[in-house]
């Protein structure tokens, strides 16, 4: 029999035409993406399973606290929002790391006759990078998420400013940008972005510094060595040694969030 009949020819022609027409569209969709993916390589990230911080309350001084807060806020372009008369505007204040009194940091541990020195001492408090972070659970857009190395990270590009995370966090570690923060930043650090109106921000354990092999800004600024940073999963790390040698408190552990900032007594 001689080749194709008319019906079959039309069928094949139709399917071929569809295929030809779809090719540029498919190329556009997948071609480029595959190319970009192919060019990436796993970078040498400083690895850890659970980053944690240990605050040695015996070593921590007021000067340390001041330097740590200043270094952190300068590095990350954290605005210093004040009222016109210069007083702190607590409702709009933005803080990544700050000082707190003992009875506020450890409400379950404070009692009337608590060690006077401890009671007077300012403590450094920051995001606890919890093992089971409530802020991550409540975030509707996954703007805040738990990284593999334990850091509770913020993706500012995704934050819609719903502030569920602020309600979820029992430590008050999150701040909301009620307005454009830029006018309140004394000196812009050109190496780090600012935030914009309508997003929540908090400490990121200096994930960008860690990836370069540097310690977090606050740890570096604390010259007395009161802040120690390391990997909890590594039994030889300094944090593990300190924790095995001395008694440590965590903030509100009864809530089951598994905070990863430890306070050596």
């Amino acid at each position, binding site marked *: 029999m001689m080749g194709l009949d008319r019906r079959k020819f039309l069928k094949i022609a139709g399917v071929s035409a569809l295929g030809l027409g779809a090719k540029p569209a498919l190329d556009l969709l997948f071609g*480029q*993406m595959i190319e*970009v993916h192919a*060019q*990436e*390589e*796993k*970078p*040498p*990230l400083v690895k850890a399973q659970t980053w944690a911080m240990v605050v040695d309350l015996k070593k921590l001084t007021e000067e340390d606290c001041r330097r740590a807060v200043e270094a952190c806020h300068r590095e990350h*372009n954290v605005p210093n929002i004040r009222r016109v008369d210069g007083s702190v505007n607590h409702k709009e204040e933005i803080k990544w790391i700050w000082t707190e009194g003992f009875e506020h940091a450890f409400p379950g541990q404070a009692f009337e006759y608590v060690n006077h020195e401890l009671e007077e001492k300012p403590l450094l408090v920051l995001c606890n990078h919890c093992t089971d972070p409530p802020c991550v659970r409540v975030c509707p857009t996954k703007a805040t*998420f738990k*990284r*593999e*190395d334990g850091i509770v*990270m913020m*993706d*500012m*590009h995704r934050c819609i400013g719903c502030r569920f995370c602020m309600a979820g966090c029992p430590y008050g570690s999150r701040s909301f940008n009620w307005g454009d923060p830029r006018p309140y930043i004394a000196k*812009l*650090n*050109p*190496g*780090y*972005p*600012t*935030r*914009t109106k309508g997003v929540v921000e908090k400490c990121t354990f200096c*994930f960008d510094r860690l*990836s*370069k092999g540097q310690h977090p800004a606050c740890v570096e600024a604390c010259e007395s060595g009161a802040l120690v940073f390391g990997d909890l999963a590594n039994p030889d790390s300094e944090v593990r040694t300190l924790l095995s040698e001395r008694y440590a408190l965590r903030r509100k552990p009864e809530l089951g969030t598994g905070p990863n900032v430890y306070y050596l007594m």
Partner: protein
Amino acid sequence: MYDSGKIIVGLIIGLGLLTFPFWYNLGKAAPPTPEPKLSEKAKTIGQCIEPKARMKTRHMQILDQWRDNMVRQGQVLYVAWDGKQYDMSLQNTCMDCHDNKKDFCDQCHNYTAVSPFCWDCHVAPEEK
């Protein structure tokens, strides 16, 4: 036709309004195509992370991917087509060479009336 006078006048006015953009721009030349200027530093280095044509058409997708890789996957380095490595950072890598946002980025963005919100947060280098 009832009220033909009113209807016809209305139609003429309506047509006039509808074609207003054409009348208004009649005889005017199209706005000049943008010519983004390379900064001195970019000129000296002479090449971007990808070939020029690709950067022209795909820089937004590349930036998107950089953002996801950096923020969500914690990856830092980008290996370019020629094997060179770059920090995945708009602010510290791209804008380091292209330190003339007004003459470079804004040229085409303004022409095509797109307003990317990159610089709501990312700090643009000071214009010289």
